[in-house]
């Protein structure tokens, strides 16, 4: 979708370039995070996409089109733009702010009004309440939501976001990040997102570009960056606790294992055989293959050797969903005092199981890659 081809930006002839021979490819529908310390060239890189900054040499293509040949105004109208201080126009109402690009594009009034309301709802802001307010009447988080809504107004395929959540308190920031990811799942924009916060990059990004002194130090998925930092600089940027950070990224569905079912009338002896055959320590018990009764563990089976499983089956208890992060799984395990936890995507159905060993293995595996 967006491609950089040997792009160089020099502000001064003698100076070291702010962006140096940058090659980059950002896929359609991806969130690409540009991360690095101040002065690494990440903002310059982003601003070259909508020609707020002109590249000294090299080419940038959007959807295969060389942007040099596109009129800057036309180009910008089709690229959503969100900046840190929101850049909301203080003398205009929220509705007028959001309507900026549709207005420039010459949409008719009804269409604009409907779009504004739709976006306010998408951003979880009640149109009746917020439409006619001025930016100064809004909290920081609300302003940032309006900033995002304004960028989305004309439904541009590409969005540029320059530290959009940088000025918010950690709680609001986390909430807005989650909200934005949820919205992105629906709208699937190609997003270039500048941040200096590696945790934000790891959380939000499909791809991460780590930059330093105008050069790309590493380009990869969050898991790749975490498990295999290209050099000292990247490791330092990630900081300590890379294993814990990895657990924040990985979901249950990545590591959960399926467990076999047995009927409630099965004897312990048979059940042990099933468990051994499948190399698992737990079995799910159903009533005649229909209703889920609970589970039995290897320990329970050995203790009750002469019984049928229905006599000592245990309730499933708390479950997690396939989308739960490993970090939350671990914290659940601690809270419940258990080494295993069942994964359930929908009520009455168990998708799999995650054990403490699985967690350790998942994190260790990635360690060994490096």
């Amino acid at each position, binding site marked *: 979708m967006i491609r950089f081809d040997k792009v160089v930006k020099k502000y001064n002839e003698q100076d070291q370039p702010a962006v140096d021979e940058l090659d980059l490819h950002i896929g359609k529908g991806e969130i690409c995070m540009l991360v690095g310390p101040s002065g690494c060239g990440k903002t310059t890189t982003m*601003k070259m996409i*909508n020609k*707020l900054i002109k590249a000294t040499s090299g080419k940038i293509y959007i959807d295969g089109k060389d942007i040099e040949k596109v009129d*800057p*105004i*036309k*180009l*910008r*109208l*089709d*690229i959503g*733009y969100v*900046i*840190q*201080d*929101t*850049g*909301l*126009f*203080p*003398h205009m109402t929220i509705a007028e702010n959001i309507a*900026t*690009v549709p207005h*420039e594009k010459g949409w008719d009034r009804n269409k604009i009004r409907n779009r504004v309301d739709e976006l306010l709802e998408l951003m979880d802001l009640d149109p009746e309440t917020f439409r006619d*307010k*001025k930016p*100064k*009447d809004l909290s920081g988080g609300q302003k940032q939501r309006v900033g995002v809504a*304004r*960028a989305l107004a004309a439904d541009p395929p590409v969005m*540029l976001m320059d530290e959009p959540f940088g000025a918010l308190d950690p709680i609001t920031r986390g909430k807005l990040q989650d909200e934005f990811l949820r919205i992105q799942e629906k709208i699937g924009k190609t997003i270039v997102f500048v941040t200096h916060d590696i945790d934000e990059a790891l959380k939000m990004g499909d791809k991460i570009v780590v930059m330093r002194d105008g050069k790309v130090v590493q380009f990869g998925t969050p898991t790749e960056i975490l498990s295999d930092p290209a050099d000292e600089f990247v490791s330092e940027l990630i900081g300590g606790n890379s294993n814990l950070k990895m657990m924040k990224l990985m979901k249950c569905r990545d590591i959960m294992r399926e467990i076999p079912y047995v009927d409630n009338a099965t004897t312990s002896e048979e059940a042990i055989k099933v468990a051994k055959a499948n190399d698992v320590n737990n079995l799910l018990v159903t009533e005649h293959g229909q209703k889920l009764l609970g589970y039995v563990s290897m320990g329970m089976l050995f203790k009750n050797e002469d019984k049928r499983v229905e006599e000592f089956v245990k309730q499933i208890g708390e479950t997690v969903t396939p989308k739960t992060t490993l970090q939350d799984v671990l914290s659940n395990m601690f809270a419940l005092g258990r080494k295993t936890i069942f994964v359930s995507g929908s009520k009455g159905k168990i998708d799999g199981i995650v054990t403490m060993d699985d967690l350790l293995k998942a994190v260790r595996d990635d360690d060994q890659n490096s």
Partner: protein
Amino acid sequence: MTKIRDSAIRIHDVLLVLLILAIGIGFSYYVVNYPQDKIVERFMSYDKIIMALTQHIKIVVISSLLAIGTSVPLGILLTRPKFKKFSPRVLSIVNIGQTIPSLAIVALFVGILGIGINTAILALWIYSLLPILNNTLVGIIGVDDSIVEAAKGMGMLPKRILFKIEIPLALPVMVAGIRTAVTINIGTAIFAAFVGGGGLGDLIIAGNNVNRWQILVLGATLPALMAILSDIAFGIVERKTTI
């Protein structure tokens, strides 16, 4: 979150305006109807006061409009990327106009244009360029960069950014400049009388010549009251344009 919007017009402003009008009219009434002697009686009439007053207003309005008409476009031009580098130089040139005493400017133009109302208007025009130009520049340059950049990044045309974003946001500062200029002009317009331009300065000169305090004080009081009135009026405009 909701708060009652401050009205731009405040009650004490209204009272002050009424008081000023009362003083102005009352004092004029006193001077005309209770003259100290024959000399004052012969010199003063409502017609004379009104004529001096309208002349004064005419000088102030024309010179101020000229100043707004030149300084605002010039100021805007000097904030455009192409001309931005000239702005310090232009400001310093205009600054020189401001450092010359106002009476000297008036006198200087007599040498060029002779005596009459045009000389007075021209001198006042030159004299009020700076505050308006300065505030136009400061107001527009002072608009938050991130706001302008957001507008630019979203694809607004430079012309639209100027008229929809920069000028509306700079307006309170620009109005403050005009307020200063007009207020100064009302006072300085007294000098018009020295070059035959008329205005309330005529009363001061006459009062001085015949040595009658009522005429002199009336000539000094009316411009002062006018200045306060204009200040209040522009204060309201300034508050109205402030977000």
